[in-house]
């Protein structure tokens, strides 16, 4: 197990290193535009050149990359061109907001997906199974933007039950989280439900469950004690991997509901070409994804000792 964790850590490190180089290359391509952003559109080429030189942009790319990497490791992402403040100051609170949103979405989604999946899997082939299966296929086919538009049309404008934006401008308000969570859960739970259903159905058909039944154990105790644990291995890894998917999903939802989170920040930073912010966001997003991937792999190995992840 220690070896496995060590290998994962080494792989993570290597991945992050390459990712950071990629991000750096992609975004520092056009250094001149950085100067324009900082000095304003009315600056002269001469002023820009001086600024670039003073700030070390005339050094070779490798030198700049290493310097950039060094400062990131010390937690310094540079100053945001749009906010005119250190990137970290803006980024960390936004990330915490998204963390909150993601935690609620993930737990709701897992609860809903797992329970529906288990119910359907246990009753394979019956009406309940059909209903769950069809519902989950249909909901995963509705893009988030479509459900966002229509859920807000219904709940904000027609019924007037829910707040329409989630900026939390006047302090924290749990009601403002309802619509974003609803949209993300609608799109995401079906995948977990389908996977759990398939996994559950497979376990229910397996020999040891059959044996347990033959021993005369009641239906539900077989389900709870024998089937569930084995059936949850596959969905578990998927749920952890949903973190990666959520980092994508929050972009649309945060943009639409004006939630002050990480996804909206990344989108706005990209549109504004606030390159230090984009770099920081991309690095953070990848770090979160890589860590959750590692957790999922290690957890999988713990849950299922027969498999060793290579």
């Amino acid at each position, binding site marked *: 197990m220690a070896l496995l964790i060590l290998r994962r850590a080494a792989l993570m490190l290597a991945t992050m290193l390459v990712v950071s180089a990629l991000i750096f290359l992609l975004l520092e391509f056009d250094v001149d535009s950085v100067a324009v952003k900082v000095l304003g559109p009315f600056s002269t080429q001469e002023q820009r050149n001086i600024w670039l030189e003073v700030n070390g942009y005339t050094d070779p790319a490798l030198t700049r990359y290493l310097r950039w990497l060094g400062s990131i490791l010390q937690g310094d992402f540079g100053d945001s061109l749009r906010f005119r403040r250190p990137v970290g100051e*803006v980024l960390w609170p936004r990330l915490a907001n998204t963390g909150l949103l993601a935690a609620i979405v993930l737990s709701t989604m897992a609860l809903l997906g797992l329970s529906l999946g288990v119910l359907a899997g246990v009753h394979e082939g019956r009406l309940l199974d059909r209903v769950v299966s069809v519902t989950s296929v249909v909901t995963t086919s509705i893009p988030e933007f479509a459900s966002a538009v229509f859920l807000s049309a219904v709940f904000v404008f027609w019924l007037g039950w829910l707040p329409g934006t989630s900026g939390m*401008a006047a302090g924290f308000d749990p009601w403002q989280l309802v619509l974003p969570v609803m949209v993300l859960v609608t799109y995401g739970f079906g995948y977990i439900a389908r996977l759990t259903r398939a996994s559950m159905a497979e376990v229910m058909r397996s020999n040891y469950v059959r044996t347990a039944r033959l021993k005369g154990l009641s239906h539900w105790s077989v389900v709870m004690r024998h089937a569930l644990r084995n059936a949850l291995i596959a969905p578990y890894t998927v749920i952890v991997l949903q973190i990666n998917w959520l980092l994508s999903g929050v972009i649309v939802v945060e943009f639409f509901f*004006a939630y002050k989170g990480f996804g909206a920040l990344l989108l706005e930073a990209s549109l504004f070409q606030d390159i230090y912010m984009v770099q920081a966001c991309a690095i953070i997003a990848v770090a979160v994804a890589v860590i959750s991937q590692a957790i999922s792999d290690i957890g999988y190995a713990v849950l299922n000792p027969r498999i060793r992840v290579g």
Partner: protein
Amino acid sequence: MPRKPFSESNYALLRRQLAEGKLSRREFVRYAALIGVSAGVAAKTAGLPGRARAEDIPMGGTVRIAMGVQDISNPAQYDWPQKSNLARGVCEFLTKTGPDNITRPWLLEGWEASEDLRTWDLKVRPGVTWRNGRAFTAEDVEWNIRRLLAPETGSSVAGLMAGYMLNTDDDGRMTLWDANAIEIVDDLTVRLNLRQPQIAVPEHLYHYPFHILDPEENGVYGVGSNGTGPFELVEHSVGERAIKRKRTDDGYWGRPAFLDEVVFVDVGEEAMAYTAALASQQVDGIYEGDVGQLDTYRTLPFLKIYEALTGQTAVARVKVDQAPFDDPRVRKAMRLSVDTRRLLELGHFNLGAPGEHHHVAPMHPEYAELPFMERDVEAARALLAEAGHPNGIDAEIVTKRDPAWELQTVQAMAQQMAEAGIRVNINIVPTPQFWDNWDKVPFGFTSWGHRPLGVMALGLAYRSGVPWNESGFANARFDELLNQAEATLDVEERRAVMAEIQTLMQEEGPMVQPLWRSTFVAYHERVVGFELNPGLYIHADTFGVRA
């Protein structure tokens, strides 16, 4: 030259024109105000009702307004009313153009223009103090004007005033035309000596980068900045929110604000979030409504909708030094290929006025009515052929997605142009990136804000060499005519000059102008005393909120 409270002979001329019906009452009040007659006196002469004072505006309370909260540290380079709305009421202006489009003195007590309109004495209002207690003087005014005109400041004020305050040297640098162009006469008087006559000086003093800043703060604005206004900026975080709070001391020179606090909430780039925030009463008002959402506002019973016909527009402009647009015939063909009445219908729900391709709005006092430039596809084709493009031209217009009416208009325009053989591809860039390159692309669709006078818009956008001249239009005849218009007080003479300018724009100008638009905002009905300024300036000291 003996000086009188206002220039009597000019005033007499205006009165005569009013009597003879050459001047509308509104125009009369404007020009009278221009030469220093108080708007109240002039309104009485013209028989207009004075502005009603809202006595029933309650004191106290908070109003929340949805508006983009941007970086505001450099007021001299403000390019959006949103930015200036966060400094408005903290750092005031020398003059103020009201919702009625008439400019009145503000930090000035008044102004006096010489007969030849070349010497302007700006009378500083006595008794005004900065929030830190220091008296507001002519020196503060002089420092601000001088700074805004300096080339290294990079302010659009330079473009506005270039015609009468600046000279362009051989390297293309603009400097004050005379060392004594700005003089301090005494503690409360600043004199502007103009290179050539100009009537719109007071309007120019209300251009949004013209916030009067404390010289000690060296041109930087932010939370806690010193100012002369009734508010103080107490919080500002880009992309989130900003708060202006009523001054706690009683040192403000004018009528204190009704509201305790104005909160500006940034709801992001998504236009629908503005409406959603209004619908769920998370904000009490919005900076600017989208015309496409007007029907949605109407479905919300607690909202009051404010509308104003403005000098706001957007133009499809070309770079006049790039082929094929370097040929004036091509540019005219582009204008002839569109039907602006139809564009108004498709792009802006018929709310506004059709464009006439010269950037002078019917609401502008100096507007000269020309025969409407009708669509003529055959003539457009003929002109293109004459210019050597018998098979038409291909072009790519750069535009952005927000606000929605712009893209609608561009698409409708491209459809119409295609029928005349001008095949336009639409290149959409993200809004923030658009403004990085708006004045560099060969063909782009640029929105322009409201200006109280037509000559102001023309001076900002089409005078040779000014910072916001996005088309590179450099036409000596145009510059000469514009200078002449700015120097002519007599309305008829001035209209004649304007007619010539407008015709020149239609014949050779660098742009196609689809429409003039009405703007809208919606506020909760409990907000009282709100008036929509056509420039979208939010004067937070003029309205209040019922509990």
